[in-house]
């Protein structure tokens, strides 16, 4: 297995995932397990689950966590570059074309309509994230705090994220300690 093979496979994965990391799993299964037998099913699910808990692009995390333990450093780096390269090239092309035609009235009308569709799509995603992320009073409070702090531009997103991670760690550790005490009693 040569590094360029990993580059090509992950480039193919990059091309065929519309809408980001979550669409990646079935294609990885097909390319790495079914077709080539390079990995086991549980390796894939483990790496994929862990990749979601790390910051940054899920596809890059998955690529590295999947490839590095078995095949080494270079294939891992090459795979993560391969997975993003197609979208970078496509977007450069689109940006260049759009730059030329952005001022046409028809294009502007189209984008006005598109913006309405995008607003509805993001409302839907926001609703799903709310359902998955907020379970109890504490998480509801974190949700409201992040929402208000960003809406009124009181704190930048980086600090909000750091704050949420620290508060979450504290709350969960506290809960774990309490549970431990209850069990011992």
């Amino acid at each position, binding site marked *: 297995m040569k590094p360029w093979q990993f580059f090509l496979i992950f480039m193919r994965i*990059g091309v*065929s*995932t*519309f*809408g*980001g*990391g979550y669409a990646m799993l079935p294609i990885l299964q097909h390319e790495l397990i079914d077709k080539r037998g390079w990995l086991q099913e549980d390796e894939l699910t483990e790496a994929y689950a*862990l*990749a*979601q808990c*790390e910051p*940054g*692009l899920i*596809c890059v995390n998955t690529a*590295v*966590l999947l490839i590095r333990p078995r095949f080494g450093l270079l294939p891992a780096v090459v795979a993560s570059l391969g*997975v*993003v390269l197609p*979208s*970078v090239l*496509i*977007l*450069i092309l*689109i*940006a260049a074309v759009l730059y030329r035609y952005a001022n046409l009235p028809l294009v502007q*009308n*189209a*984008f006005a*309509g*598109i913006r*309405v*569709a*995008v*607003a509805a799509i*993001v*409302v*839907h995603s*926001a*609703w799903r*994230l*709310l359902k*998955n*992320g907020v379970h109890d009073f504490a*998480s509801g409070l*974190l*949700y409201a705090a*992040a*929402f208000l702090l*960003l809406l009124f531009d009181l704190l*930048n*997103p980086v600090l*909000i*994220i*750091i704050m949420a*991670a*620290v508060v*979450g*760690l504290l709350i969960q*550790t506290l809960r*774990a300690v309490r549970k431990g005490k209850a069990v011992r009693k």
Partner: protein
Amino acid sequence: MICLLLFWEFFKIGLFTFGGGLAALPFLFDLSLRYGWFSQQELADMIAIAESTPGPLAINMATYAGYHTAGIPGSLVASLAMVLPPLTLSLLLCRLLRRYADTSWLERSFWGLRPAVAGLIAAVCCSLIDLALAADLESGLAGGADPLAVLLFILFLPAVFRLKKHPILFIAVGALCGMILQL
């Protein structure tokens, strides 16, 4: 110089986005407020383009924003900056995980991130609705709404919620409606 700044800003986004895809949006909105690199309106258009092309949303947005700011070098710098934090962190984590199998602390800190990211996206949502429905982009919704856009939005919402179709479809319909209604 601008490339250095691009690198730094997108590196930070790569480091602090949890949960993929839309999680980068709050950071990009923040960028549009702090630098004149792209407007909020252009960011909304960027979301549509990113949703309609293959690959991770965050990379699409980094490439587009980079191009907007400093051409092809800008787009390469921004997307590379976005890849580096997950790449290096995952490489480090691979090693660590083999030594310490217990990752419960990671899950514990992630517990607080999920509601916070959801809250951030909800705030972005408000800006996007404001952009899409305002009659005049300068004054926003406070200066009055565009009735046609509001009507379209009211029709779109149940469609997006009920029909589990790919976003591309809705974006295409939105573009058609925009051209026909001359929004």
